[in-house]
């Protein structure tokens, strides 16, 4: 081989080597660039998913407490049950699974079977928020059948518990899928209650088992903040139960009420009836369902209009979720006279002793306004005008104030702005829609406004305004969340009571306070009278002209004790249809019940007058063991009626037992032999005067406990604690509720 050939060969070898190296390393480099840069993210994710376990740690939603740290809403882990219909091979499997799941999860079999027939789907949710026991039953069923592992599955979920069901439901609201607040406080404070989701990133071994903690990173979930409400469970219960009874007795569409702390503006109770169960918010309440059934079902029980029925159920569902104390507005009626009076007294255009003459009507421009008492109240002072709820006098006061000054107080008391309470969907006053602005406040409009007509206000606006009178003229910012707490119970935020403004002077507030107390003690709000306590307030009756001719809202707003106000109370009964419709007749007794219970609960000492003391019930003495003659003598000396059962000489048993309280001529049954109690049937005790109800009860061998207004004329019972026709032990005490009929639209 020549030298030239050798060089040529050498060069070719070098080129071949270079090409080989270039191709080899080039391919390697290309691969690196491709894996590392071009598709780097993709491979990174693949590697991470293969080697790392990324678990989401869901943060529990914060708990809602009442003012005394009683739990009102709390979340806990739950599960979703799902099926994979595409893996179900035959109808037998579908039948088996549908039967068992429907039985375990308390579902409709047909609905579950229908889901099982969705063969084209790989995931169909059967039920969410399933509790542990049911989930375990489903897993047990799954494990007992070969192949069901791929058909039935579970997923983590969260369930929100409301231990008291419908308790303050319109305030608390409810949560939906994923524990997200959809209504009420749950919605308004959703961001606060919702925590921050945590993560655990752990390396996995070849068997996909998580490796030890040294290969993991933990980002703790942050539990949402807890809310401590200003709502007091006990006062809420008093308000709820009183409103529920009022709605039933008066056959009303709705009843709503608020109790407010006078000094701070904190909401102690807030209720709308009928309401819903927070644990089951989509189920329409029975009252609405009955109405819908009547409306859309013929005599044979067939549905006449299915579409209309479904629409009505949807509307009823939305209606029951509404917190009407803040979302609805109505004409406040005569309750607003307190504001007109406050403006008049503060501006000095009227005094409490000033005499007026009510002729029954008052002319403003071309309009004639009538007093609720058409014949007129005659000569009366301003306080009496307030007690009589005399429209012409308040029109006169408004005319004296003039538009500008009148509107200044209208605005100052908060009727032209929302209160700003921390609840969703508060109704906003719409200028010249729900109220007259100053530039459009004609003399006629002002005259109507002066006694609470031609404008609308929400219950929360009204109670906030009346509360200012109780609170020495200071208008407070209402609020319902008192504090926010972290998971360790530390307060991270506390609401400070806020005085919005001083709307009237302390002196004017005190003067008005006395006037309002007179309204309760002898005016249209007599039914709100509570023996032993000084209650101040004003009733209102307003017509819902947009709904119908004789449709009313009966209301009462006041506070107690008048000499040192602790709580303000608003009661509104919407569309009462049982006969009475005035605020004094319908809302007054409810207010009395609520105020009496709250005063006892707040340990406010009653101060009885001599008259009240004379009417108090008496304690039954212990007479068992005495001779019949001695027992009779002792009991009759204290005013009780005695009935002896048996032929023995010695009392072996007495009913009511010693220590119980009875009206002065109440019945005490003495048994002289050991025998079964004698039963009597409870008569109908409604629609009777106090004396008549007592006589009927005694003649039946029963006792009555009188509740409500029992002084003066036109008193009649309207409710009894034990239904007529019920068999009870002779001597049983039946609570009978009395009220006086206030026929004038107050």
């Amino acid at each position, binding site marked *: 081989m020549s030298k030239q050939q050798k060089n040529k060969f050498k060069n070719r070898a070098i080129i071949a080597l270079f090409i080989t190296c270039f191709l080899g390393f080039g391919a390697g480099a290309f691969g690196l660039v491709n894996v590392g840069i071009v598709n780097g993210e993709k491979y990174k994710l693949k590697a991470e998913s293969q080697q790392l376990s990324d678990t989401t740690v869901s943060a529990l939603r914060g708990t809602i407490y009442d003012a005394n740290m*009683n*739990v009102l809403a*709390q*979340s*806990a*882990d*739950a599960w979703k049950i799902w099926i994979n219909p595409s893996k179900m091979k035959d109808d037998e499997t579908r039948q088996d699974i549908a039967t068992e799941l429907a039985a375990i999860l308390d579902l409709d079999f047909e609905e579950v079977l229908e889901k099982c027939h969705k063969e084209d789907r790989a995931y169909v949710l059967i039920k969410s928020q399933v*509790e*542990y026991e049911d989930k375990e039953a489903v897993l047990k069923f799954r494990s007992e059948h070969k192949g069901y592992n791929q058909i039935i599955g579970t997923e983590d979920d969260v*369930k929100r*518990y*409301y*231990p*008291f*069901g419908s*308790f303050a439901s319109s305030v608390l609201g409810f949560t939906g899928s994923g524990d997200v607040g959809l209504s009420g406080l749950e919605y308004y404070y959703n961001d606060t209650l919702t925590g921050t989701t945590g993560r655990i990133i752990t390396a996995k*071994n070849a068997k996909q*088992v*998580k*490796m*030890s*903690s040294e290969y993991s990173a933990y980002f703790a979930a942050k539990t949402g903040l807890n809310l401590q409400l200003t709502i007091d*469970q*006990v006062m809420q*219960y008093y308000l*709820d*139960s009183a409103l529920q009874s009022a709605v039933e007795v008066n056959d009303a569409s709705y009843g709503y009420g608020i109790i407010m702390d006078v000094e701070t503006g904190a909401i102690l109770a807030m209720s709308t009836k009928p309401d819903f169960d927070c644990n089951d918010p989509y189920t329409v309440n029975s009252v609405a369902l009955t109405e819908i059934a009547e409306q859309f079902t013929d005599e044979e029980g067939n549905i006449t209009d299915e579409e209309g029925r479904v629409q009505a159920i949807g509307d009823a569902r939305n209606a029951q979720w509404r917190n009407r104390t803040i979302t609805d507005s109505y004409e406040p009626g005569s309750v607003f006279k307190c504001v007109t009076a406050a403006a008049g007294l503060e501006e000095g255009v009227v005094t409490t002793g000033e005499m007026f003459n009510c002729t029954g009507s008052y002319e403003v421009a071309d309009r004639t306004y009538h007093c609720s008492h058409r014949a007129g109240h005659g000569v009366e002072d301003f306080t009496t005008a307030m007690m009589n709820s005399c429209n012409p006098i308040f029109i006169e006061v408004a005319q004296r104030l003039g538009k500008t000054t009148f509107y200044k107080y209208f605005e100052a008391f908060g009727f032209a702005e929302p209160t700003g309470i921390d609840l969703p969907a508060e109704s906003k006053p719409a200028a010249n829609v729900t109220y007259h602005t100053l530039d459009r406040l004609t003399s006629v409009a002002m005259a109507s406004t002066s006694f609470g007509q031609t404008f609308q206000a929400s219950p929360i606006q009204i109670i906030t305004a009346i509360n200012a009178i109780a609170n020495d003229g200071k208008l407070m910012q209402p609020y319902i969340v008192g504090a926010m707490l972290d998971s360790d119970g530390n307060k991270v935020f506390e609401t400070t009571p806020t005085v919005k403004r001083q709307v009237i002077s302390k002196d004017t507030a005190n003067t008005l306070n006395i006037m309002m107390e007179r309204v309760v003690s002898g005016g249209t709000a007599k039914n709100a009278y509570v*023996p*032993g306590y000084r209650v101040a307030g004003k009733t209102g009756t307003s017509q819902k002209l947009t709904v119908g001719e004789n449709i009313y809202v009966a209301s009462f707003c006041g506070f107690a004790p008048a000499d040192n106000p602790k709580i303000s109370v608003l009661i509104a009964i919407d569309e009462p249809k049982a006969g009475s419709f005035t605020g004094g007749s319908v809302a007054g007794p409810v207010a009395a019940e609520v105020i009496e219970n709250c005063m*006892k609960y707040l*340990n406010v*000492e*009653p101060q*009885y007058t001599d008259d009240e003391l004379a009417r*108090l*019930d008496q304690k039954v003495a212990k007479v068992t063991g005495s001779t019949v003659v001695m027992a009779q003598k002792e009991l009759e000396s204290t005013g009780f009626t005695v009935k002896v059962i048996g032929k023995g000489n010695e009392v072996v048993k007495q009913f009511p037992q010693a220590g*119980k*309280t009875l009206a002065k001529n109440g019945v005490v049954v003495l048994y002289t032999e050991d025998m079964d109690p004698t039963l009597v049937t409870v008569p109908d005790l409604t629609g009777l005067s106090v004396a008549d109800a007592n006589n009927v009860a005694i003649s039946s061998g029963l006792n009555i*406990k009188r509740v409500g207004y029992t002084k003066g004329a036109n008193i009649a019972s309207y409710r009894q*604690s034990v239904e007529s026709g019920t068999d009870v032990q002779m001597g049983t*005490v039946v609570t009978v509720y009395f009220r006086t009929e206030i026929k004038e639209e107050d």
Partner: protein
Amino acid sequence: MAYNRTEAVDMRRMQSSAAPARRNIPNTRPRTAPKPQVLQKTKRQLRAEEFRSTKKATKALIVCSIFFFLIALQIYSQVQVDELDRQLDSINQQIEVVESENTRLNMELDSIISLDKVDDYAQNVLGMVKVENYQVSYIDLSGGDAITQSGGKIQRSLWETIKMYF
């Protein structure tokens, strides 16, 4: 077998003790293979050698055993860690379930003893009545606590004592 024989050959004896001959000096003597000398080792020497080789083998075995033991220990500990991790995971899940159950049962308990149910049971089953206002005695504590001290003997001067008689 030849391997089992005890004769030994001393190879040194096969080598010439004289200095190696220079290459340019031809070796005229015919090559004859020297006769190997067989050395007989004592039993003691053989035992010592056997002991040494056994010792070496034992050492190697021990080192290997330790090595394999450590590897096995490492594997075992890893298995244990994995098992404990699995148990920990399982226990954590159980704790979550138990906490949820605790919440659920508390909620159920609260619902059973709600105010309306207690009220209903007390009045309609137990026949209890609500307390009347006049059955409650109110004590005014607004004045705060008061302490009454017994007075000691008053020391009076002679003049004060005389004044007291007038």
